[in-house]
C-alpha cells in the first residue's frame, strides 16, 4: 500500500467530521469516478453503444445504404455524403463501422455473459461440493486454459453445421455466424470466472451464515444461489468486464481470418479482411476498423481495472 498523501488524509478527516455516513454504493461510485481512465472509458463505451444503435438513423440521414455494392464509387475519399469515404466495394465506411460496432459489442457482451454464467455455475459446484468433483472440474479447467485456443477455434469455426444436426433454419439464418461465435467463445472463456468463484465459494462456505442456512435445512442449490452467489458477485463482475475486451479481440481475429462473422454482416474484424491488399492504395480503410477495435478493447480493460480497484473489499475497509 502506498502512503496516503497528506491532503488525502485531510479529506478523509473532513469526511469523518462531517459525519456523513456513506452507503457502500456511494463509496464505490466515488472511488470509481476518481479512477479517471475507467470513468472516461465508461463514457466512451456508452457513446459508442449509442452511436452504433443509431446506425440506421445515420444511414437515413446520409441517404446511403450500408449494404449497397457500388463498384463505380469504390475507395472514394471522404465527402459530404460519405464522411469517411467508401470501401473497396463502394459501401459507406462510416455506416458499416457503426453496424460493425453493433455486431462486435453484441458478441462481446453476449459471449462474456454466457461465459460468466458457465464459469459461475462450475465454480459454485466445485467450491461448494469440494472433494472429487472439485478435483475433476479444476483439472478440466487447467486443461482448457492450457489449450492452444486459436487453432482449436479455427477448426470449430470451420465445422459443417449440417453434420452436427442443427435445425436448418438456424444454420441458414443471416446471424448464424453471430450465434456460432458467441457459443465458441463462451465454450473456452469461462475458466477465469470458474476459478475465482471456486476460490470465493471455498471461503464463503465456512462462514456462519452458510452454516446456519445448512442447519436450517436449506437445500444445496438454495445455499449456493441465495447465500453464496450474492457474496461472490464482485469478482464475477470484474472478471467479466475484463474478459469483454479479450472477446472483442478474439472475434475480430476470427472474422479477419474469414471464420467469424460472415459478410455481408459487417464486423470490425471482417472489414479488415481485405485490408492487407488495400494498404497500397487505400491505407485509411486498414486504419479505421482497427482503431475502433483498439479503442473498445482498451476501454473495457480500463473499465475492468477501475472496477477492480473500486470493488476491492480490502481497500474499502481501509478507507472508511
Amino acid at each position, binding site marked *: *500500500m*502506498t502512503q496516503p498523501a497528506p491532503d488525502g488524509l485531510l479529506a478523509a478527516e473532513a469526511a469523518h467530521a462531517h459525519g456523513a455516513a456513506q452507503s457502500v454504493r456511494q463509496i464505490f461510485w466515488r472511488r470509481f469516478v476518481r479512477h479517471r481512465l475507467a470513468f472516461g472509458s465508461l463514457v466512451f463505451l456508452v457513446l459508442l453503444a449509442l452511436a452504433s444503435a443509431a446506425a440506421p438513423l445515420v444511414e437515413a440521414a446520409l441517404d446511403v445504404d450500408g449494404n449497397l455494392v457500388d463498384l463505380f464509387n469504390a475507395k472514394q475519399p471522404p465527402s459530404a455524403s460519405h464522411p469517411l469515404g467508401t470501401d473497396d466495394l463502394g459501401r459507406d465506411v462510416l455506416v458499416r463501422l457503426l453496424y460493425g460496432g453493433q455486431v462486435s459489442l453484441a458478441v462481446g457482451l453476449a459471449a462474456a455473459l454466457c461465459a460468466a454464467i458457465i464459469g459461475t455455475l462450475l465454480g459454485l459446484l466445485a467450491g461448494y461440493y469440494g472433494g472429487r468433483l472439485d478435483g475433476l472440474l479444476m483439472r478440466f479447467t487447467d*486443461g482448457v*486454459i*492450457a*489449450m*492452444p*485456443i*486459436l*487453432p*482449436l477455434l*479455427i*477448426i*470449430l469455426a*470451420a*465445422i*459443417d453445421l449440417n*453434420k*452436427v444436426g442443427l435445425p436448418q433454419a438456424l444454420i441458414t439464418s443471416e446471424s448464424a455466424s453471430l450465434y456460432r461465435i458467441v457459443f465458441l467463445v463462451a465454450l473456452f472463456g469461462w475458466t477465469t470466472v470458474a476459478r475465482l468463484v471456486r476460490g470465493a465459494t471455498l471461503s464463503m462456505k465456512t462462514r456462519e451464515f452458510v452454516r446456519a442456512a445448512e442447519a436450517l435445512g436449506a437445500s444445496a442449490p438454495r445455499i449456493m444461489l441465495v447465500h453464496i452467489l450474492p457474496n461472490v458477485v464482485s469478482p464475477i463482475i470484474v472478471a467479466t468486464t475484463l474478459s469483454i*475486451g479479450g472477446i472483442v*479481440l478474439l472475434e*475480430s*481475429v476470427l472474422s*479477419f*481470418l*474469414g471464420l467469424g462473422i460472415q459478410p455481408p454482416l459487417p464486423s470490425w*474484424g471482417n472489414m*479488415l479482411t481485405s*485490408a*492487407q491488399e488495400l*494498404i*497500397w492504395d487505400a*491505407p485509411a480503410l*486498414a*486504419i479505421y*476498423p*482497427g482503431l475502433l*477495435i*483498439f479503442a473498445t*478493447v*482498451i476501454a473495457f*480493460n*480500463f473499465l475492468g*481495472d477501475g472496477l477492480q480497484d473500486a470493488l476491492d473489499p480490502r481497500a474499502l475497509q481501509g478507507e472508511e
Partner: protein
Amino acid sequence: MLSYLSRRLIESFLVLAIMSLLIYALIGLMPGDPIDIMIFSNPEMTTADAERLRAIYGLDQPLLSRYLAWLGDALTGDFGYSRLYNQPTLDILLPRLGNTVVLMGISFILALAIALPAGIYAATRPQSPVDHAINLIAFAGISVPPFWLAILLIILFAVTLGWLPAGGMGDGRDFWADQRHLVLPVLALTIATVGGIIRFMRAAAIETLRQDYVRTALAKGLSGRQVIVGHVLRNAMLPVVTILALQMGNLFSGALITEQIFAYLGMGKTIYDAVIGNDYNVALAGLLLATLTTLLANLLADLAYSWLDPRISYQ
C-alpha cells in the same frame, strides 16, 4: 522428484490422448471428406467408385475404429500424407515447427527482457508518472488487435519507409538477408506479448515488496538494487512463471496470426492453411503438436518453479 516427473509426463500424455480423440472427431465434422474432394477433381467417378474408395480408406467404419487405426499408425510415426503438399505430414510439419520455435523463442525472450525490468521499475514507484506511463503502454499492448498491429507495421516499415520486407521467408541464399524477414514478425509478436507480462510482473513485484523480509533487508542497510536483485526478483518470479507457462497457448495463437499476415511458414500458418484447404492429416497432426508444445511448456514451468523456490519439493 523423478516420480513426480514421471507422473506429470503420464498425465500430459493422457491429456494428449484425450485431445487427439477430440480433435479427430472435430475434424471429421469439417465440410466434405477426402472422397468428396476426389469426386470433385474427377467427374467421371461413379457412386460405386466412391463407395469402394470409402471402403478402401476405411471411411465407412465407425469413428472410434477409424480413430484407433489412425492412432496405431501415428504411434509408429506415420501421420499420413498431406493432401495440399503431397508429402508425408511430418516432413511438412517438423521444419515449420522449427520456424515457429525461432519466431516464438526470440519474441518471448525479447518480451521478457523488456517486461521484467519495466514491471519491477514500475512496482518500485507506484502511482508515479513513470508507473502510469508503463501501465498505459502495457494496457495498449494487451488491447491492440495483433493482426492490425502487423498491418500497421507493414504500412510503416515496408510501404512507407521501405526498410524491411513485408513478409515471406527469404530465398535461402544469404543467411543475414533472410533474417531481415524475421524482424517485423518478431516485432509484432513481441509487442503483442509484452503488455501482459509487464502487468503480471508489476503486480507480483508490488506484492513481494510488501513482505517483511524486504523491510528487513532494507533495514540491515542493503542498497535498493541489492534488495531488488537478491530478494524481490526471485520471489516475484514465482507467480509470473506459472502465468507465463499458461500463456504459451496464447503465444501460439499470436504466432498463428503473425505468421498468417507475414506469410511466415510456421506451424500456425500451416494449421490455418490445412483447415481452410481440407488437409485433414496436417491439421490434425499440427494441432496435436501445438498441444504437446503447450503441455511441455507447463511441465517446464513446474520444474522452473521448484528451482526458483527450493521450499517446494515434488514428492
